[in-house]
């Protein structure tokens, strides 16, 4: 862990100087530096640090946060999401659960936290991205098994299915346009069939992922938002009902698969 922190510090200094001559080559140099290792390891460490670091007006850590398995239990929590929480009477994805904990436990401001949940190219990752990445790593190798015992969780799956096939926008695109057939691709990009167990588990189990082309770790919430951008729809909001519903649809279809995140993608 110490070694990684040193690397992060060195890398930050080096990146800042490299950005003065800003060009795409910066990421090539970075990849050469990394070898076969997934750069997401840095973000995993950062997420762990954020969990145990006192923060917000309350100056408390997130250890009292209940991710569904009890306060502070992080191992194996990711693979049970999205799930129903009695304290909010809502089905939540991990991202919105983290926001809930940061506002209620640390006393942090909801608007500030949700104003920019996903980083943009050239930024350092956000806190939410780092925490989600670490929590995914805390479930690495675990079986994907989202909760479907509560009626609200089953309703969320049904809503997700309905939205998955909902065609709208100037191009008439739905999620299904690209993701209901196997073995297809857009240009050279392979498309997972999210209606099948194998396709859904491959996709659900490999996010969050480090995107080499962007130099950032991306979460499933970001992946969905960017899909809708390409669908020519307005912008999907983090933790919204549509986001949670689609994640539920995908996670339930993926049930039985193995969590392999954080992944490494193009």
């Amino acid at each position, binding site marked *: 862990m110490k070694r990684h922190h040193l690397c992060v510090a060195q890398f930050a200094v080096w990146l800042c100087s490299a950005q003065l001559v800003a060009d795409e080559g910066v990421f090539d140099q970075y990849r050469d530096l990394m070898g076969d290792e997934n750069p997401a390891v840095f973000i995993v460490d950062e997420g762990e640090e954020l969990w145990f670091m006192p923060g917000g007006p309350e100056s408390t850590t997130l250890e009292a946060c209940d991710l569904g398995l009890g306060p502070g239990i992080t191992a194996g929590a990711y693979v049970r999401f999205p799930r129903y929480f009695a304290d909010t009477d809502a089905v939540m994805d991990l991202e919105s659960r983290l926001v809930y904990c940061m506002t209620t436990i640390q006393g942090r401001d909801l608007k500030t936290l949700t104003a920019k949940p996903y980083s943009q190219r050239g930024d350092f990752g956000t806190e939410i991205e780092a925490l989600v990445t670490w929590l995914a790593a805390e479930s690495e190798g675990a079986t994907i098994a989202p909760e479907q015992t509560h009626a609200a969780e089953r309703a969320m799956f049904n*809503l997700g*299915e*309905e*939205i*998955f*096939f*909902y*065609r*709208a*926008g*100037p*191009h*008439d*695109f*739905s999620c*299904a*346009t*690209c993701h*209901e*057939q196997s*073995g*297809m*691709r*857009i*240009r*050279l*990009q392979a*498309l997972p069939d999210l*209606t099948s167990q194998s396709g859904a588990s491959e996709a659900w189990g490999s996010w969050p992922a480090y995107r080499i082309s962007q130099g950032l770790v991306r979460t499933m919430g970001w992946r969905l938002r960017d899909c*809708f*951008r*390409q669908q*020519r*729809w*307005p*912008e*999907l*909001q983090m933790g*919204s*009902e*549509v*986001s949670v*519903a689609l994640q539920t649809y995908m996670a339930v279809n993926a049930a039985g698969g193995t969590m392999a995140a954080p992944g490494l993608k193009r």
Partner: protein
Amino acid sequence: MKALSKGIIITLLASVVTWTMASDDVEAILQNSFVAKNQATMDRLERDAVQAACSAPRGMPLNNDMLTTLRQERLKAVVLPANSQYLGDWQRGSDVAGNGRGLQSSDDPSKPNGGNCYACHKLAPDEVAYGTLGPSLTGYGARGQSEAMLKYTWTKLWDTHVYNLCSHMPRFGAQGILTEQQLKDVMAYLLDPASPVNKAVE
């Protein structure tokens, strides 16, 4: 008997009401889950008749009468080019076929939209970065340039649902994605014997 038919009518009405309510719910949920961004405005989440009819999950039975009516309506709405001038410039058509931008919140609305044909179709045989969601169109020009063929191809590009209701393909003319001139250029890219689409690779 009267009571029975009354019961059936009530049941039918109830099922229609339930279905409508579910649909309204989804629309409200969508409105609460998205925010307008640049040119991607919230009205894009409202569905027209084609979109609503084609949003059924895979395997759901569709109403054949409704589909036939819808197809006829779509055919009536197709706008053919004046004086049967279907063919533009295949070189400009090539640019339209390769351009994936247009109408996304991240796109510059002052620039022309692309047709992004290569996202889903194989066209010129020497372009290897093609998608496979649609059929290969390599050698499409072998079909010739009869009036019927020109009209068919134009209609397919204008509104795919005329021939293949609930096809995944966008309605490039009907939805105003491409201009009439761009459509003519894509027509030439598909049908002109000089277009790379119709040239064998050496």
